[in-house]
């Protein structure tokens, strides 16, 4: 053997008992959709069928919302807060127990490397429930008034990029605050949500508190437009977020929206270079770049640009692309054919508009949806690849001369979700953090999440925050706002 080649190290699929079909989870039970329709979910790394999933239409949504309302009125809002919290603790603990199973199912359904589902997605999701469980009986300390009340029934729609984690970000605070929910997972990644429904059963969660309705965009619209929900919580594209905002404009519904981003990752000349290179790689290639807060624009201070790019390219050639179930895989499959096409479409404008594309040599599998880690240099602010969210492993590289110019370029976007700052100088880091118009700022790190840390964006990256004290506010009735 020439050199150290890592033999395949596959995680076993045996632990994942994926049923051949799933119904909708309404009122504590799995039920068939009223019209009996279903759709398939596949493994994007192999294109193999994983399961047939029930398709919820308007009638099913209606049933789910009714269950949630009934559970809210009769059970959940009457329950002493500390007992509500205990259900969330149970859920957290069971998720921890079944962590490996969840990780494998997540990887099979989503395409992300098993190392990421195992080490990031699942532990964070369980931690989210554990953290919020502790808020249930402490809401008077959340800074939203001294007798905060839940909003009622919440319709929640989540994306395919972090299926279980996004579910946790939605359900945990909603329930902790005393609400009941109807949640629609993404069309391509329903499985861990359905597994979660089983966990709710194991935890003895009262029927109707959590309802999971699988389906597509039409299902989601039916949920958003249902007259008996009090709030919409949505994570997804800015385009759909705006559509939701329009749909609810004439209603009393409140909404939190967690939308797209085009984050700038600023590397100053006094940065710890090797760690900055890691941060750049993590920022855009973690989760195949399917991250709303991805550092998709690299802004390099011009005097270190060459050095950083050289190190970056060397580092990128170490990225292992391939079977997501292999424990050594760094970059997994693109979640769907549709998303792959979108990545191709936008990144090809990079070539067309004159930027310079580079990818390390990668052997991509023949079946499944794949895109190699890619950087474009010679990018200017006006290029589509510098303005539009690609949502794939594609990094646009720009330069800046002075700190002020770096900030200006970073802020020159309709998005404002996140940003990265790389500098070893404390005051510069804090100065840059102050100037950047972004809801989450990572200094000398990137893509760090914690249930205690509020997450959300400025401008067209959305409304509201998730996590921490600030995230709870969205699930409690406001003292000040009026919704007539």
């Amino acid at each position, binding site marked *: 053997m020439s050199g150290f080649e890592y033999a395949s190290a596959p995680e076993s699929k045996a632990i994942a008992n994926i049923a051949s079909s799933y119904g909708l989870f309404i009122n504590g039970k799995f039920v068939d959709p009223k019209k009996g329709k279903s759709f398939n979910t596949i493994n994007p790394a192999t294109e193999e069928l994983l399961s047939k999933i029930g398709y919820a239409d308007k009638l099913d949504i209606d049933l789910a919302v009714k269950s949630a309302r009934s559970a809210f009125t009769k059970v959940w809002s009457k329950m002493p807060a*500390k007992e509500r*919290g*205990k259900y969330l*603790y149970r859920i957290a*603990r069971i998720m921890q127990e079944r962590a490996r199973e969840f990780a494998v199912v997540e990887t099979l359904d989503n395409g992300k490397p098993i190392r990421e589902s195992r080490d990031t997605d699942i532990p964070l999701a369980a*931690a989210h429930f*554990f*953290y919020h*469980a*502790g*808020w*249930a*009986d*402490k809401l008077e*300390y*959340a*800074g939203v008034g001294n007798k905060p009340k839940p909003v009622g029934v919440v319709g929640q729609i989540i994306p395919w990029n972090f299926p279980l984690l996004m579910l946790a970000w939605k359900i945990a605070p909603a329930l902790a605050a005393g609400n009941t929910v109807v949640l629609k997972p993404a069309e391509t990644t329903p499985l861990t949500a359905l597994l979660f429904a089983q966990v709710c059963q194991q935890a003895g969660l009262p029927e109707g508190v959590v309802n999971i309705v699988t389906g597509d965009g039409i299902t989601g619209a039916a949920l958003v437009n249902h007259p008996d929900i009090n709030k919409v919580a949505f994570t997804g594209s800015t385009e759909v977020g705006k559509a939701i905002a329009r749909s609810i404009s004439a209603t009393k519904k409140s909404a939190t929206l967690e939308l797209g981003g085009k984050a700038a990752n600023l590397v100053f000349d006094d940065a710890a270079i090797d760690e900055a290179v890691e941060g750049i790689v993590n920022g855009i290639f973690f989760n195949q770049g399917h991250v709303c807060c991805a550092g998709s624009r690299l802004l390099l201070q011009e005097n270190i640009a060459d050095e950083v790019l050289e190190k970056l390219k060397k580092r990128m050639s170490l990225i292992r692309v391939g079977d997501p179930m292999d424990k050594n895989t760094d970059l997994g499959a693109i979640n769907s054919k549709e998303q792959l096409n979108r990545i191709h479409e936008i990144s090809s404008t990079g070539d067309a508009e004159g930027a310079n594309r580079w990818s390390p040599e990668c052997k991509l599998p023949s079946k499944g949806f794949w895109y190699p880690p890619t950087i474009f240099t010679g990018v200017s602010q006006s290029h589509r690849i510098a303005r539009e969210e690609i949502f794939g492993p594609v990094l646009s590289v720009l330069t800046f001369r002075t*700190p002020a110019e770096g900030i200006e370029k970073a802020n020159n976007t309709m998005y404002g979700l996140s940003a990265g700052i790389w500098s070893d100088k*404390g*005051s*510069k880091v*804090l*100065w840059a953090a*102050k100037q950047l118009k972004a809801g989450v700022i990572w200094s000398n790190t990137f893509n760090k999440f914690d*249930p*205690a840390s509020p997450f959300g964006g400025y401008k067209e990256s959305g409304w509201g925050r998730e996590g*921490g*004290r600030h995230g709870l506010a969205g699930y409690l009735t406001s003292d000040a706002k009026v919704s007539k």
Partner: protein
Amino acid sequence: MSRIDVNKTYKLFIGGAFPRSESGRVYEIKGANKKFIANPALASRKDLRDAVVAAKSAQAGWANATAFNRAQILYRIAEIMEGRSEQFVDEICALEGITTKAAKLQVEEAIDTWVWYSGWCDKLSSVTGSLNQVSGPFYNFTTPEPLGVVAIFAENKPSLLGVVRTLAPVLAGGNSAVLIASENFPLPAITLSEALVTSDVPGGVVNILTGKSAELAPWVGSHMEIDGVDVAGLSKKQEEELKLVGADNLKRIFRFNSENHPERILSFMEQKTVWHPIGI
């Protein structure tokens, strides 16, 4: 012939282990029905000294664990206690002479108290810390930090709940504890230690002594390595004496009411304020 019980020996809990008193002394505990239950150890000042050494050496590790980790451990104590509920109920009934129903309520409240304080570990500085808007180009923030070693004199009754509601907030704040159980109702505290030792609580974070508070109070008051004291189980006079002697190292000494409150955590914490300039 009916089965003879294997009666439990009640020892001290120090550094994660169960030693007898170095003095070799014990004292008799009889139940509410005047029948003999056990001879728990009668702790000496040297046992107290050893407990403080254990508490001091364990405290830094406990404080440096993530808040999430501490929260998980406090919750685990609740899980383990839940499994042992009956044992606690029986012990409380025998000792306090109350009904099974009342004892059960006490045990449930004790378990729920652990859960309540567990939920505070990772929220305390979000709620009580602050970013302060000073005049000038400075980032200025205040965060609570653990105090160090806190001594607790547990109340007589309720014999289990009184221990838990003083101990939990001390731990939630990242401190280690030396708890002196009630002289007349000490046993649930030692049984609690059995739950602690199986809950991933690092050795030395909690230390429990049984004995005479009158004997130990002056030594607690004068010990320069003890940073804070909860005087729940002391008389007014004992409290005053302890405050007098405790002034030598400015111990933080408090008596609380029976409410669960984040203030009980904060009272045994410091507040640190940090400034940093903002500029290129």
